[in-house]
C-alpha cells in the first residue's frame, strides 16, 4: 500500500458504488489523481445486487461492465477495497485521511481460477445475497466482482480449510498472515459516496418481518430473480419454496414515517412497479400482484412506466398503509389487515409472499463522521460551504434513484475538481 501516491491534488472518493465509481471516473478521465476507498471486497455497491433497473428494465451489469472497463483502463484511479476511512483531518485543499485496510488474505497474484474455493468446505453467510444463503470460505463476491480476486473469510484463518486453500493455490495468492493495515493519505478534496442501507425491517413490528417467514424486503426480492442468487433465479418464498404468484408489495415500509424514516425514499414506488413485472415475467397471467400504497411517486417520465403497470390487469393498487400482518398458520400465507381508504373498504387479504418496499437509510453516521459536516435530520449530507472540500455524491446527499445518483455524482466530481484545480494554480 505504501506505493500509493497521494498529494493535496488527489481526490479521495469514499465508497465504490455506482456514485463513487462515477465521480472517480469523471475526475480521472480529465486527468485527476483519484483514490477510491471501498469497504467491501469489490466495487459496484448496491447496483450489483439489482436484477433490473426501472424504468427500462435493463440490467445494471451492463453499465457496470462499461464502468469497470473504464476504471481498469484508467491509470489515474487507485482502488482500495476492504478499506474504510477512520479519520479525516484538514481543510479544502489539504486533507489527511486515515484508512484502515482489512486483510483479504488473497494478494494480487490471484487469477480467480477458483482452485481455493474448490477445496474449502466451511461456509459463511453470503452478504451479497443479504445472507439468504451461504458461500464458501474462499469466495468471489459475485460474477462481476472487481477486482476479480478471491477473498478469504476472516473466520477461516487458523482453520485447516484455510491451509487447504493455500495449498491449492498454484500462484501463491493466498497469504494467511496478512494483517490489518492503517495508512494515511493526502487529499485535496473528498467525495463522500457511501450510499445507503435498507432500513431494518424488523423495526417495523406490525409487519412481522422477524416473525413471519414469507415477509421479505424489496432488496431480498431483487436477489430472488438473479439466476446466481439464493434461489437460482426462482421466484419462490422462504417458508416452503412454493412459487410466489400472489405477491403483495407494501410501500413506505419504514419511509414517510416519523417512527422510522421521516423522509420519502423516492425509489420504492418505482422499485415495486418494476418488481411487479418480475412476477409477470415468471408466471405470466398466473401472476397476481397487489400494491399497497399511500401515494405512487413515479415522478417525471417514470409515470409512463406507472401507467404501463396500471394497464396490467394482474396488478391491483390499494391506497392503504397496511395495518398489520398475521400468519395463516395452516399454509404460512401472510394475511394483510387494513382499510382501502378510497371509499373505505376493509380487507384481510392473504398472499403467498409479502415484499416490504423497504426505505433508504443513508450510510452517513452523523455522530461518527470523521470530520465536521452538515447533515440533515434525515441523515443526508447537505450541500454547504461549511463542508469545505468534502462533497456528498449520490445517496449520501439525498434519497436518489440510480440515474439521479449518477447525475449528482458527476456534479460532485466537478466540485472536487474545482478544489484541486485551485490547489494546482496556487502551487503553479
Amino acid at each position, binding site marked *: 500500500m505504501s506505493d500509493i501516491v497521494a498529494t493535496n491534488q488527489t481526490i479521495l472518493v469514499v465508497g465504490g458504488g455506482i456514485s463513487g465509481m462515477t465521480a472517480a471516473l469523471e475526475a480521472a478521465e480529465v486527468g485527476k489523481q483519484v483514490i477510491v476507498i471501498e469497504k467491501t471486497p469489490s466495487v459496484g455497491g448496491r447496483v450489483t445486487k439489482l436484477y433490473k433497473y426501472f424504468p427500462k428494465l435493463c440490467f445494471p451489469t451492463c453499465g457496470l461492465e462499461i464502468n469497470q472497463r473504464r476504471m481498469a483502463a484508467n491509470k489515474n484511479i487507485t482502488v482500495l477495497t476492504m478499506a474504510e476511512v477512520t479519520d479525516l483531518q484538514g481543510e479544502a485543499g489539504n486533507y489527511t485521511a486515515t484508512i484502515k485496510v482489512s486483510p483479504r488474505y488473497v494478494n494480487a497474484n490471484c487469477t480467480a481460477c477458483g482452485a481455493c474455493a474448490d477445496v474449502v468446505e466451511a461456509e459463511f453467510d453470503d452478504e451479497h445475497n443479504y445472507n439468504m444463503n451461504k458461500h464458501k470460505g474462499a469466495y468471489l463476491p459475485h460474477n462481476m466482482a472487481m477486482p476479480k480476486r478471491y477473498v478469504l473469510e476472516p473466520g477461516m484463518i487458523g482453520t485447516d480449510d484455510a491451509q487447504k486453500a493455500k495449498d491449492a493455490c498454484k500462484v501463491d495468492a493466498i497469504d494467511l498472515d496478512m494483517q490489518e493495515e492503517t495508512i494515511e493519505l493526502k487529499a485535496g478534496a473528498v467525495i463522500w459516496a457511501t450510499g445507503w442501507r435498507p432500513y431494518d425491517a424488523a423495526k417495523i413490528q*406490525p409487519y412481522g418481518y422477524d416473525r413471519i417467514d414469507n415477509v421479505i424486503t424489496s432488496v431480498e426480492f431483487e436477489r430472488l430473480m438473479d439466476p446466481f442468487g439464493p434461489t437460482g433465479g426462482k421466484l419462490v418464498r422462504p417458508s416452503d419454496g412454493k412459487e410466489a404468484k400472489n405477491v403483495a408489495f407494501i410501500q413506505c415500509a419504514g419511509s414517510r414515517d*416519523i*417512527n422510522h424514516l421521516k423522509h420519502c425514499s423516492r425509489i420504492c414506488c418505482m422499485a415495486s412497479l418494476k418488481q411487479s413485472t418480475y412476477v409477470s415475467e415468471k408466471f405470466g397471467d398466473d401472476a397476481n400482484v397487489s400494491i399497497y400504497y399511500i401515494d405512487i411517486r413515479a415522478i417525471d417520465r417514470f409515470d409512463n412506466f406507472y401507467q404501463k403497470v396500471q394497464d396490467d390487469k394482474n396488478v391491483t393498487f390499494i391506497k392503504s*398503509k397496511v*395495518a*398489520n400482518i398475521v400468519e395463516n398458520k395452516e399454509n404460512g400465507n401472510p394475511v394483510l389487515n387494513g*382499510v382501502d*381508504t378510497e371509499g*373505505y373498504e*376493509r380487507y384481510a387479504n392473504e398472499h403467498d409472499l409479502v415484499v416490504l418496499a423497504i426505505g433508504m437509510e443513508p450510510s452517513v453516521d452523523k455522530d461518527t463522521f470523521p470530520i465536521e459536516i452538515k447533515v440533515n435530520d434525515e441523515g443526508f449530507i447537505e450541500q454547504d460551504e461549511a463542508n469545505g472540500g468534502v462533497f456528498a455524491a449520490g445517496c449520501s446527499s439525498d434519497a436518489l434513484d440510480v440515474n439521479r445518483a449518477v447525475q449528482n455524482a458527476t456534479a460532485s466530481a466537478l466540485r472536487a475538481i474545482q478544489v484541486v484545480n485551485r490547489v494546482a494554480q496556487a502551487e503553479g
Partner: protein
Amino acid sequence: MSDLSSKLNTGMVEKYRNNFLKEVEANVEEGDWVKMCMQCGVCSGSCPLGAHWDHPPQELFMMIRAGKRDEVLQSTSMWMCTSCYNCIVRCPRELPITHIMHGLAHYATRLGIEPKGQPTRQFAQLFWDNLAKHGRVNELWLGVNLYFMNGIVEGIKVALGMAGIGLGMLKSGRLSLKELIGGHTVKDKKGFHAMIKKAQELEAARVDGSN
C-alpha cells in the same frame, strides 16, 4: 338537548362558518392534529372494533377537513373507541388518534348533538357521573345503573343476563353489596368537587367563552 348546549351548538356553527376544521382545532382535545393526517388509513385498519365504525378515524379526519360537521359529530363511530392505542403507536404522523376520538365524542356531547342511544356514550356518562360523585368508582352502582340505563324492563333483562357474572363476582369477593350503602369515596369530597367544578369552568370559558 339542553338549551345551553343547543345555544352553544348554533353559536359554534355561526362562529366557524364552513370551517369545521378550525372549530375542531380550537375546541376538540388534540384537535389541532387533524390537519396532519395524510390519509394512509393505518389507524382505520388497526382498530379492534373497526368493522363497527361507520367512519374510521382517517375518514373522520377527511370529513372534518371537508366540513362535514353534522356527519362527524353525530356519528357513533368515535364512541367505538376501546382506547387500545393501536392507532396511536402505528400512525406515521404520530397523531394522538385515541384522544382525538375521545375529544370529538366529548365535544359532540358538549354541543348536545351526540347520538343519544349509543350505549358507550351512556356508559361513559354514567362512569363519569359515578366517579365525579364519590371521587372513586363504585362498581356496583355503576353496574346497576348500566343495566337500567335503558329503563326498568330492559334493565331487568340485562341484569338477569348478567346475574351469573354478578354472582360470580360476589362469591369471589370482587363485588360487594356494601357498595350499595356508602362504599368507597374520597375523603375530601368538598375539595374534590370544587376542583372538578373549577376545571369545568375553566374549560367552558375556553371553549364557548361562557361559564
